[in-house]
């Protein structure tokens, strides 16, 4: 590059950045920007990488992305991006980008043992259709499955969910968000009757106390952390930050207090705070009496493992046995008011979510054992810290929550979600905030952060889960099905009332042969799921057909039978919803390379291959039991379909997607597109605009049902930087459940937790139900008592160290995208195992040794790191999970929260030795 051009570019980049963050620049400087950028086309967009949902501006020139910058008008990030944000413009240009469908073949025919060969889209879809139809015929709708995603755009998730649920009548669609947000969702629904946080990011500026629980925000939500740091540094003496973690991390750098706790004892710490609130009579009685009830549920709910040891490796069997029976340890005995050594049959593994209302007195009795003495001893996580110091920190933590002069926000992510009692510990956060009346107010609230860019917007709101329908409805509820059938113009009883397989059960289904066709969309389950050896074997050795839509050759692509090359973020139109309920949209910026196609196109194109008579006839669903249905069976609805004007020969494409109404949503649509292309519309070539039509159709579900979204054009308009739902009369809602801000709250109520789910329960005491009659609790939130339970796997003489996985800032999840950027990859070359120097010494290991990490389930190798940014206490190890060559999930335990079925990636026992 010539010097002059380079100088000009630098001056221009600097001037443009200055303008972005509001530093005044001279006229001359402004001119350099015009000059350097004269052929660039800037457009607004959204970051692809995390749930923060930063706005980014993307510049294109001659069909290529040339620059990105933080969007100065985005309220989330105000012009900043974290390091990852940078790579939005680069990830699509990796050298191994897939550009043609690839099918395993031998001698021109599909062969599961064959090698991948490039085929045409027609050939690919022909094979996919053939395989799908064969399985569908033999096994019925629950023999097929889709692995969905929290990275789906809203139209993508909607298309996939509608195709599966309304078309194929299967609920076997479940997103990777199951691994990340499911526990948060259960707690929202159980506590509030509606999903997603009441507050928003502005809480950071309104509060004076930020407590992080199992959330390394400095690395994992850096832009929000920048806002927290700003708040802290702007008022150093008054603003308090407390970081609770099992492993010292960067978030502690500016924290006032770092509390290192033993894995799983967060359950006890929350209860200690609750006990203090009660003991110091700091309960906001007015708030609680008007707006809350107390509740609890069974403790003997297992750990989400298989109930049988049939599939377990020999070494796994002792842990697996706990699914059936647990021997209480001394701490659990105190925490659950029982005897140590007592054998407890896990009787409620099938109905872990059931719960009942209790009195405040019973609640008090529940938290009573959680004294400072007990909890401090139980929870101290750093052997080098004195008990007195840990005690003092816990006390200060309780003080900070309870101080009535303080506002307090609790943030958490995977530490609390990926937890064998993830739903409980999420509920405990609401317990503390609700007791104090510090919820749903500016600067006050328990705030669940999300990992993925559209875990909220798509996975949860669209409902791409095995049990969900759009707008918080569920398949098991006949009214919800009826409403969905009406909106989707389906005959009654088309929708399947039986909850489908969650993501771990899809994997297990592949292993058992119950599921024989799976389609992987926008995620990488064969790398990202715990206990991976089982699933890879299932994919490769069992008789099944696995399709993987992917821009890159990931582990999931590698184990698939057919790979569909797929368009990436800026190669399509899309909308995401971030962690503060903000829905944001972007236009297609560039074309996808080669023959890569959008996920929306793939779903629609596949739907063309099915006639109603193939899917809407009688179907067998093993295990289906539901009022109005014959056991094990979905009825033939073709007659009613005829009465509605459908023909059995109609295709699912016409009935579900290219409906008369949707075809009216015309493409080209210059008013919105402003020169941008829409490849999906062009490839379909039928003059309609699928992303827009699908979004506007989806939107109907939420209108008037507490989930109102604006229309597609509003989100796409140049001056819109997203809106926080519910969007009523064009206005977003800043704090939900609070009359001042939320139009859904009844006038005069002050607060109202109006979510409709689970709003009547039996009544009982701590030990069980005493009155089965359901007592309604309209407008109220539930304050749950949940006890401490010990982690099912803990270090012992053989596997003597704790092991946890997580993220580091430079990489996003399994690294499929970020590892494509060569420089970035080099920055963190290969996964490291972080360990305390003392533990290393004990084992005769030194920094940079190659070590073997072994658990009951498998082994992996890594470079040992005893310094650096993650500083585990003695007895703990940590490894990030982005690197394909260091397959940490092989050692992870596939225990889940029994309520949410979310895997606990954070607590396994391992041994480490020199390779």
């Amino acid at each position, binding site marked *: 590059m010539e010097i002059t051009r380079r100088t000009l570019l630098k001056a221009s980049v600097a001037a443009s950045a200055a303008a972005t963050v509001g530093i005044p620049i001279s006229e001359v400087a402004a001119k350099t920007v015009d000059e350097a950028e004269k052929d660039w086309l800037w457009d607004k967009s959204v970051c692809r990488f995390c749930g923060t949902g930063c706005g980014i501006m993307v510049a294109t020139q001659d069909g290529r992305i040339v620059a990105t910058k933080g969007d100065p008008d985005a309220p989330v990030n105000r012009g900043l991006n974290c390091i990852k944000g940078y790579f939005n413009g680069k990830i699509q240009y990796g050298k191994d980008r*897939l550009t043609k469908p690839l099918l395993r073949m031998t001698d021109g025919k599909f062969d599961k043992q064959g*090698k991948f060969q490039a085929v045409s889209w027609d050939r690919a879809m022909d094979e996919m259709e053939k395989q799908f139809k064969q399985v569908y015929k033999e096994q019925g709708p629950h023999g097929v499955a889709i692995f969905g995603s929290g990275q789906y755009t809203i139209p993508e998730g909607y298309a996939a969910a509608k195709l599966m649920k309304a078309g194929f009548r299967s609920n076997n669609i479940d997103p990777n968000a199951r691994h990340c947000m499911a526990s948060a969702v259960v707690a929202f629904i159980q506590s509030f009757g509606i999903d997603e946080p009441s507050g928003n990011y502005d809480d950071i500026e309104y509060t004076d106390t930020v407590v992080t629980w199992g959330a390394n925000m400095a690395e994992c939500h850096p832009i929000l952390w920048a806002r927290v740091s700003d708040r802290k540094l702007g008022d150093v003496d008054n603003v308090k930050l407390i970081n609770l973690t099992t492993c010292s991390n960067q978030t502690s750098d500016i924290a006032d207090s770092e509390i290192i706790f033993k894995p799983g004892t967060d359950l006890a710490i929350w209860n200690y705070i609750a006990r203090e609130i009660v003991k110091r009579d700091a309960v906001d009685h007015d708030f609680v009496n008007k707006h809350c009830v107390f509740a609890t549920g069974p403790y003997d709910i297992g750990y989400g493992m298989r109930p049988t040891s049939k599939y377990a490796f020999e070494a796994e069997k002792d842990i697996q046995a706990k699914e059936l029976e647990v021997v209480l340890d001394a701490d659990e005995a105190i925490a659950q008011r029982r005897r140590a050594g007592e054998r407890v049959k896990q009787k409620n593994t099938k109905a872990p979510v059931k719960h009942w209302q209790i009195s405040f007195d019973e609640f008090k009795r529940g938290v009573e054992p959680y004294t400072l003495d007990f909890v401090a001893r139980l929870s101290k996580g750093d052997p080098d810290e004195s008990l007195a110091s840990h005690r003092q920190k816990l006390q200060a933590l309780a003080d900070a929550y309870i101080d009535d002069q303080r506002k307090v926000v609790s943030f958490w992510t995977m530490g609390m979600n990926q937890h064998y009692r993830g739903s409980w510990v999420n509920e405990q956060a609401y317990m503390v905030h609700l007791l104090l009346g510090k919820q749903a107010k500016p600067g006050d609230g328990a705030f669940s952060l999300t990992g993925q860019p559209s875990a909220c917007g798509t996975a949860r709101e669209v409902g791409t889960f095995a049990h969900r329908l759009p707008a918080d409805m569920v398949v098991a509820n006949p009214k919800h099905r009826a409403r969905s059938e009406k909106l989707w113009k389906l005959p009654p009883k088309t929708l399947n009332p039986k909850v489908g397989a969650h993501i771990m059960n899809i994997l297990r289904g592949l292993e058992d042969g119950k599921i024989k066709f799976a389609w992987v969309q926008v995620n990488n389950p064969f790398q990202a799921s715990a206990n991976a050896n089982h699933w890879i074997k299932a994919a490769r050795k069992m008789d099944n057909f696995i399709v993987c839509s992917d821009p890159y050759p990931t582990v999931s692509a590698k184990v698939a039978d057919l790979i569909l090359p797929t368009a990436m973020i800026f190669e399509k139109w899309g909308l995401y919803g971030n962690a503060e309920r903000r829905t944001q949209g972007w236009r297609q910026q560039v074309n996808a390379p080669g023959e890569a196609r959008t996920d929306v196109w793939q779903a629609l194109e596949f739907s063309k291959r099915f006639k109603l008579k193939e899917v809407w006839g009688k179907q067998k669903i093993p295990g289906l039991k539901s009022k109005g249905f014959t056991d094990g069976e979905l009825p033939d609805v073709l007659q009613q379909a005829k009465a509605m004007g459908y023909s059995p020969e109609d295709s699912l494409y016409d009935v579900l997607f290219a409906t008369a109404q949707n075809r009216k949503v015309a493409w080209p649509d210059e008013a919105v597109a402003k020169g941008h292309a829409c490849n999906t519309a062009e490839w379909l070539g039928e003059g309609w605009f699928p992303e827009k039509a699908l979004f506007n159709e989806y939107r109907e579900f939420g209108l008037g049902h507490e989930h109102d979204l604006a229309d597609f054009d509003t989100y796409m308009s140049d001056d819109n930087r997203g809106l926080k739902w519910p969007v009523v009369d064009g206005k977003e809602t800043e704090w939900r459940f609070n009359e001042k801000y939320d139009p859904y709250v009844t006038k005069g109520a002050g607060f109202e937790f109006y979510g409709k789910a689970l709003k009547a329960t039996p009544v009982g005491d701590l030990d069980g139900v005493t009155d089965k009659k359901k007592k309604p609790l309209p407008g109220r939130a539930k304050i749950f008592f949940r006890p401490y339970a010990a982690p099912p796997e803990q270090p012992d003489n053989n596997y003597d160290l704790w092991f946890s996985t997580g993220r580091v800032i430079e990489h996003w999840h399994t690294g499929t995208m970020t590892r494509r950027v060569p420089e970035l990859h080099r920055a963190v070359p290969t996964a490291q195992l972080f360990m305390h120097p003392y533990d290393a010494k004990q084992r005769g290991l030194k920094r940079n040794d190659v070590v073997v990490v072994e658990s009951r389930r498998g082994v992996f190798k890594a470079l040992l790191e005893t310094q650096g940014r993650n500083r585990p206490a003695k007895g703990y190890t940590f490894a990030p999970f982005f690197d394909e060559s260091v397959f940490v999930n092989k050692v992870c335990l596939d225990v889940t929260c029994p309520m949410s079925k979310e895997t606990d990636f954070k607590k396994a026992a391992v041994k480490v030795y020199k390779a």
Partner: protein
Amino acid sequence: MNISAILAVVLPEKLDTMVTTLNQLPGVEVHHIEQDSGRLILTQEAESIDDEIKGLKMIKKLPGIIMADMVQHYFGEDEHSYPPELPDELNDQSEAVCVPAFLNE
């Protein structure tokens, strides 16, 4: 080659020394200064993003820096980038070379 613009916030009383220090870092140049708030815009030029990240981390660690984060990134002429059209050899069906080798390992 990559050029990034970084927003840094420094303690206002250290502004002058910080500007000097920053300008001495390889590839770094301070362009805009806002005296009252201590905000600076600097550019960093580096061969690779690896170097940029290292540079940014170094800047973040300097005493006197309150925060530093990237704002804009230019990589239009990054030699590591990938052509918008696939190179011919990748499209060559007969060799099926568009199948990444490791998939068939």
